[in-house]
């Protein structure tokens, strides 16, 4: 095959059986790879009602057809499983070189089943696949684990592993590859921990083949040119990283502050990308095949929060900053480093601390509950300590490890959890930006921005400007972005390539690479197929229209301060039309006609 490697690796961690399967060409064509392929495998093989942390759940690592080529900024992979934080189908996307290295070793997907009897790591060197003892790695943090495995396997290997948080099954534990890159959301690291799998170490010597080399070079060149000429894709993200958004969102009153109590933070600039660039930034970093370089190599010299590594992204700076009432960027970066080292999702971690801070400020929890942690709004030191305690499973950290929904429910206030489907929403206020709220509510993995990033048109005006306060046209916009993103994720491309290119560009690259003819519409159709299959999975595991919601606060309490003062989210009003646009019935179930159209019937 061209683009795809044509093989899937299956590893039964319980019995130790390792087997190889052929990638079905029709599945590859219809689901592309990564998120799409992983979801298809889950649909075919796993009961949607499975306990996410039981051996019956599966964990799938899958790169996309673009991964391992120079399609610009397109070397990514997805981890697909049933997520313990949400109970939904989960796909968590990461960059770096790990996904490309899986391709070079000859694999389009690795399916992990069962549970190892003791701590284990998986070695993949091309076709030679072995399970190894990880007892002495258990308890080590991500950089220590990664370095120990470089020493034991090869310096040229790529390592994806969990930290202590994944081992302890913190419900929002991440999987980290090459120390700094995260498959962060929905708790995929906890699933890996539940299987006693500490790491996957991969090294490959094969090449990804191209169907039409000249056409591929031309299509990639054209895509690169468009991204480089784009003010966001070509300039903005390299200069300031994603954290350039702090000031932009604050200026429209859409920066969630103090656990979404309002949408404006007076000192926002102190944790923004411009401040970062002027102080802690060492250099921009790029994932495999990246031409955008939004990654931030940073260093903190302040002795209290000393460290170096990568980050923060916008959502991280927001979560540990304004959402906790904090304006100390050094502390925010330290919290980010700790998350990377211990293996925690920064967004859910930030959102969970923010929820605890609000409950503390309102007297719902006290110093007795927090075991002495003074979690009032703005206390940077306590925030950093809360993150550390969560990762190592001590003190109040044991409760924070449950995520904000379960934490707030423990104290009788689930309404203070700023989540959709129990996953913490990221850094865009649904009252200030109508489309993004609809995306949170309908997102197949709960509170998440990267599955339907309507912030581009609604705030940045890319590719065209939409009125952020309007509801008209938003269901169409959200569905279109969700479908396109489903295809982009499944192809191995980075979402940020949309700052420059569109469906026709991906289709041209994919056609030249694979030799399978795709139009722009075909490409988007793949994404719509993935979206509907995820929806079917969630419906089968008990999710209904009632779960397509965001917290009442955002739909009933007018924004109290800032440029979006007085606004509420109109998610409920938009929902019937969204279902209609999707070709779903009034209960949010895909109709037989829609399923037939997508060849899912």
């Amino acid at each position: 095959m061209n683009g795809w490697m044509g093989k899937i690796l299956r590893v039964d961690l319980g019995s130790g059986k390792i087997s190889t399967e052929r990638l079905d060409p029709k599945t590859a064509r219809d689901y592309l790879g990564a998120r799409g392929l992983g979801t298809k495998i889950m649909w075919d093989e796993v009961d949607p009602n499975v306990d996410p942390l039981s051996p019956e759940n599966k964990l799938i690592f899958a790169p996309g057809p673009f991964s391992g080529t120079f399609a610009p900024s397109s070397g990514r992979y997805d981890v697909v499983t049933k997520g313990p934080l949400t109970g939904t189908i989960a796909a968590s996307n990461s960059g770096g070189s790990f996904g490309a290295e899986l391709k070079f070793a000859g694999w389009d997907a690795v399916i992990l089943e069962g549970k190892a009897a003791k701590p284990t790591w998986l070695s993949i060197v091309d076709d030679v696949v072995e399970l190894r003892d990880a007892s002495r790695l258990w308890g080590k943090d991500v950089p220590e684990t990664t370095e120990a495995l470089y020493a034991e396997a090869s310096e040229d290997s790529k390592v994806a592993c969990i930290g202590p948080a994944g081992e302890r099954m913190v419900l929002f534990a991440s999987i980290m590859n090459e120390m700094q890159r995260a498959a962060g959301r929905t708790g995929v690291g906890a699933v890996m921990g539940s299987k006693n799998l500490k790491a996957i170490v991969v090294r490959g010597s094969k090449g990804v083949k191209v169907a039409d080399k000249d056409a591929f070079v031309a299509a990639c060149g054209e895509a690169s040119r468009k991204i480089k000429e784009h003010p966001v894709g070509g300039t903005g993200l390299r200069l300031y990283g994603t954290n350039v958004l702090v000031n932009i969102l604050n200026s429209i009153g859409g920066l969630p502050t103090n656990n979404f109590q309002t949408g404006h933070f007076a000192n926002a600039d102190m944790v923004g990308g411009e401040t970062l660039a002027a102080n802690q930034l060492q250099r921009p970093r790029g994932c495999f095949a990246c031409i955008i370089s939004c990654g931030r190599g940073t260093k903190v010299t302040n002795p209290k929060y000393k460290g170096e590594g990568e980050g923060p992204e916008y959502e991280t700076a927001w979560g540990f900053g304004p959402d906790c009432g904090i304006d100390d960027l050094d502390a925010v970066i330290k919290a980010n480093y700790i998350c990377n080292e211990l293996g925690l999702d920064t967004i859910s971690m930030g959102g969970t601390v923010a929820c605890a801070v609000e409950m503390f400020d309102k007297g719902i929890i006290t110093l007795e509950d927090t075991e002495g942690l003074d979690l009032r709004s703005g206390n940077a030191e306590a925030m950093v300590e809360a993150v550390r305690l969560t990762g190592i499973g001590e003190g109040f950290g044991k409760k924070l490890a449950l995520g904000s929904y379960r934490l707030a429910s423990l104290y009788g206030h689930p309404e203070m959890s700023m989540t959709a489907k129990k996953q913490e929403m990221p850094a865009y206020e649904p009252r200030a930006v109508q489309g993004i709220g609809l995306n949170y509510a309908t997102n197949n993995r709960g509170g998440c921005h990267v599955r339907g990033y309507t912030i581009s048109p609604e705030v940045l005006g890319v590719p065209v400007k939409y009125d952020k306060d309007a509801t008209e046209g938003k269901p169409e916009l959200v569905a279109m972005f969700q479908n396109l993103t489903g295809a982009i994720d499944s192809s191995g491309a980075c979402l940020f390539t949309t700052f420059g290119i569109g469906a026709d560009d991906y289709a041209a690259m994919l056609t030249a690479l694979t030799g399978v003819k795709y139009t722009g519409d075909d490409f988007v159709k793949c994404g719509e197929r993935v979206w509907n299959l995820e929806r079917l999975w969630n419906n089968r595991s008990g999710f209904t229209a009632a779960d397509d919601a965001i917290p009442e606060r955002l739909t009933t309490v007018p924004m109290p301060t800032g440029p979006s003062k007085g606004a509420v989210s109109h998610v409920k009003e938009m929902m019937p039309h969204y279902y209609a646009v999707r070709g779903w019935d009034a209960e949010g179930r895909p109709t037989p006609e829609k399923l037939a159209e997508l060849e899912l019937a």
Partner: protein
Amino acid sequence: MGMMLTIHPEKCTGCRNCELACALEHGGDFRIKASRIHVYAWEREAFSVPMMCQQCSDASCVTVCMPKAMHRNPATGLVEYDASKCIGCKMCVQACAFGNAAWDALTASILKCDTCDGDPACAKICPTGALEWTDDDLAVQARKKSFATKIKNAFSEAQS
């Protein structure tokens, strides 16, 4: 005067587009293990450095090559590899102090930067200018100036 590939590690983001372009140019697919350029990353410090043949003036790979497969092109000053003369003894691999000559078992040949015949694909694709194809007698001037700028800034700061 000739040309050379200059490395600016401070601009390298670790994206490895250079490896991909090199592999495609020479092998027709993305088998980057066979790339003539490789990027090494220090993940804790978020730093990376690309490495490829430095075209040494006193090149040990040329010195040790008995059939003279590895030889200098007097016109360009670059070290070239003639596969038709190579006997596969791998002495160049042993001799290169930088590890920039490698043996590829799959194709039974030596992998060494050939600058794509004077139009290096790696420098062309590099999105940040970390790899630069430049006059060999001017190659350090840009870097000299960038360090001079740092000194200038330090002085300005000290005086303000």
